[in-house]
């Protein structure tokens, strides 16, 4: 119920802007990333990108990994992060709270998907066969681990809290995968990109876990800046991202670590589908308060 209330709260109104945040051009840029995996994996994954941005922009870059999604949002809204890698849902919240400006997104982010994952020994073939089982979302503010899968489940006729015997929320996509492979939950849903990267680097074994279904595509992650950030800095950072080239051998490891083929300029309209999904969820909750 806590989660549904949160969704409702997000759709009611945008909070007032903080007046003390002014246009600035800091020499040090603090970059925050969504804590959708454990901290060490995230540090390893983002280190090449941070080095690249420092070299390309000439700025000092500091990487900040908050402990959870709420802290991440708080840090951004407090103006401690100049640039942040948001999920779709957290971006909408930051946009509402502090007019976060979308900068760039990965090529895969326009058509992102979530994966329903089950233990490899389980022979069932669809989510509909898991009625009465223990189910796990990712973090409750995660677009791919919660918001969009919930939206697709409900529009598909499955209200998780009624259909499954129990609904859990993990701290990250990697934890959801571990719960499923360790048979703590029967079925879970996670970011497909992260699940695939875990298969690729050996953190997951196909002998223990398999992908059951994939959701329809939706827009997800986006790099966004504070609205107050100097326009030239925004352009400097945007051009650095857009300059990453798959055909450049120096950029290849970085892009591979990010699971990207390249970066696109991002706009507010790109997340209209998520906004629509959140609105839809809110209306469903309103019509069915149970």
């Amino acid at each position, binding site marked *: 119920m806590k989660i549904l209330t949160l969704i409702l709260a997000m759709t009611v109104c945008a909070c007032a802007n903080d007046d003390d945040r002014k246009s600035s051009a800091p020499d040090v840029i603090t970059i925050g990333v969504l804590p959708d995996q454990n901290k060490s994996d995230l540090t390893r994954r983002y280190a090449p990108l941070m080095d690249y941005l420092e070299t390309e922009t000439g700025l000092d870059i500091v990487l900040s990994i908050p402990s959870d999604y709420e802290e991440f949002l708080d840090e951004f809204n407090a103006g401690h992060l100049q640039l942040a890698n948001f999920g779709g849902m957290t971006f909408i919240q930051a946009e509402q709270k502090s007019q976060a400006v979308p900068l760039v997104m990965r090529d895969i982010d326009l058509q992102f998907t979530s994966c329903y994952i089950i233990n490899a020994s389980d022979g069932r073939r669809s989510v509909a066969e898991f009625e009465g089982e223990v189910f796990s979302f990712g973090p409750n503010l995660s677009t791919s681990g919660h918001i969009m899968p919930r939206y697709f489940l409900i529009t598909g006729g499955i209200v998780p809290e009624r259909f499954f015997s129990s609904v859990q929320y993990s701290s990250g996509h990697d934890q959801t995968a571990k719960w499923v492979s360790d048979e703590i939950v029967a079925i879970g849903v996670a970011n497909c990109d992260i699940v695939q990267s875990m298969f690729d680097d050996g953190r997951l074994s196909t002998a223990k876990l398999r992908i059951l279904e994939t959701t329809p595509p939706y827009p997800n992650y986006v790099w966004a800046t504070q609205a107050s950030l100097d326009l030239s800095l925004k352009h400097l950072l945007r051009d650095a991202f857009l300059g990453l080239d798959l055909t450049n051998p120096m950029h290849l490891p970085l892009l591979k670590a990010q699971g990207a083929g*390249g970066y696109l300029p991002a706009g507010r309209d790109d997340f209209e589908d998520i906004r629509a999904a959140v609105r839809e969820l809110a209306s469903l909750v309103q019509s069915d308060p149970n």
Partner: protein
Amino acid sequence: MVIAATALLTTLYTGQHAELAAQDRIAFYHLASSAASQQLRRDTRSINLVLQAAANTTETAAGGFSLTARVSAALHSMQADLIKLRELQEQYADYQFSSTLGRLTERFGAIMHLHTEASMDPLLESVEAFELNIEQLRRLHMIAAANELASIEAQARRVLPNMAILMAILIVTCVVGWYVTRLLRESLVNQKRAEEALAASVERMHHMQKLEALGQLVGGVAHDFNNLLTAILGQASLLEDKSSRDEPMRQGLSEISRAAEQAALLTKQLLTFSRRQPIEPKIVDLNNLIRDMEPILRRLIGEDIKLTVRCDDTQNTIELDPGQFHQVILNLAVNSRDALPDGGEILLTAEHVQIDSDDHRRGDMVNGRYAKLAVIDNGVGMDKKTLDRAFEPFFTTKQKGRGTGLGLATVHGIITAANGHIFVDSNPEKGTCFEIYLPSSTRYAEKVAADSVSELAGSETVLVVEDEEQIRTLLQGGLGSLGYRVLTASGGTEGLEICGSRAESIDAIVSDVVMPDMNGAAFMKDALDMRPDAVGIYMSGYTDDIVLQTGVGGSAIPLINKPFELDELARLIRDRLN
């Protein structure tokens, strides 16, 4: 194996090539879409600039018309760009970015709607968002193209080593296949050779067994027959003595004796074939034996046939009975002569050869050094059937009464008894080749040294009278080397001159029987009258009949038949002088 490897290589190459071509095609599509997006972006920017300019100026009626016309033109161009993008997507059946393209189309519809409403700010905002979406689409296609190109490169990098490995496998397969084929072929050839050699060996063994059996049979009969002939000859001789006054009976008994002697000659040949004839092997030089017999052979085969004798310069010593070997050469020469009724050529060669195991034609011969004698003619030759029976006793192709059928059988017996080997090769109308191999002897030097020092040497004076210069020279050198002082004369007249004119003693006179100026008997009588202390010896190369006609027969002076070995003459001289 090679064909399978080639087929596999071709299949893999074709598959890889097709996949790379497909990827190349997709990469081309993305690049083309990216270019179309770029054009759309340019058109959008131009409309954006027009709209921004319009927003900053006061519209007039003419300006409004102009603005509307420019916006309409730009929108028309944008519409064309969108259609082109859609066509490209459909042509390449790629719907990866269809939702993005759909969103663009939808937004374009909104722009058109706003344009008709002439609401400037929302239109400007919408066009800016549209421009961003176009850039996204262009970048998506660029990234997809780069991904495809990287994939093509990666696959090409993977394919190249695979192709190299496959090529290496193909080459190795070819080389191994070639080598195995060669080994198999060599193995088959060797097997076939071994089988042929075995078959030939078996055939030779059967032939030898057959000849051996015949030899035993013939030898047994000849031995018993010889005893009977001895009795017949003895009794005939006794009866001849008792019937000296009964001329008809004496003549009859003489005919019986003559016939019995001829029969004895035949049994001697039979015993030779069956190797029961007593033999007296000696160490001799094959080359010398052949050279010594050359004059006799020339007279034997006649002038219509050209005889060529070739002996190599190396010492060619063998151990056998010289008398028997004379018979071998004579029999083979007669055989060749009879094969040349209309004349031709006979080649007689002697050489020292080494036989090794690789010479399969030589059958069971033990490896080592051999004296080889070959008698070759270009006569009528023999067919296979005749050739197979050539060494059988009593087998002859000659007319009745012309041959006994024992010539080649005797040759075979003598050569086999001397541990030698005889081979014959013949083709009808082309000729025949007999090859005889006799084991080389290493005892020559010992024998010569022993004979020359202990038995044959002397210091006396010997007069040699001989019209043949070669024989004269030979005897002068040979006897001289044994220590004798040798005087020579080319005929009886010169010989008598030497006997009369020389003051020193002449201890032995060796004379030819038939000489151009006077016969040997007449010369010997006058010479011994002049030198009564000397001993005389006749030499002759003619048959007994001719010798008898010269008056030599029946005298006390010994006769040595040509050809003779120098040792024989030296021994005779030494015996006479002693």
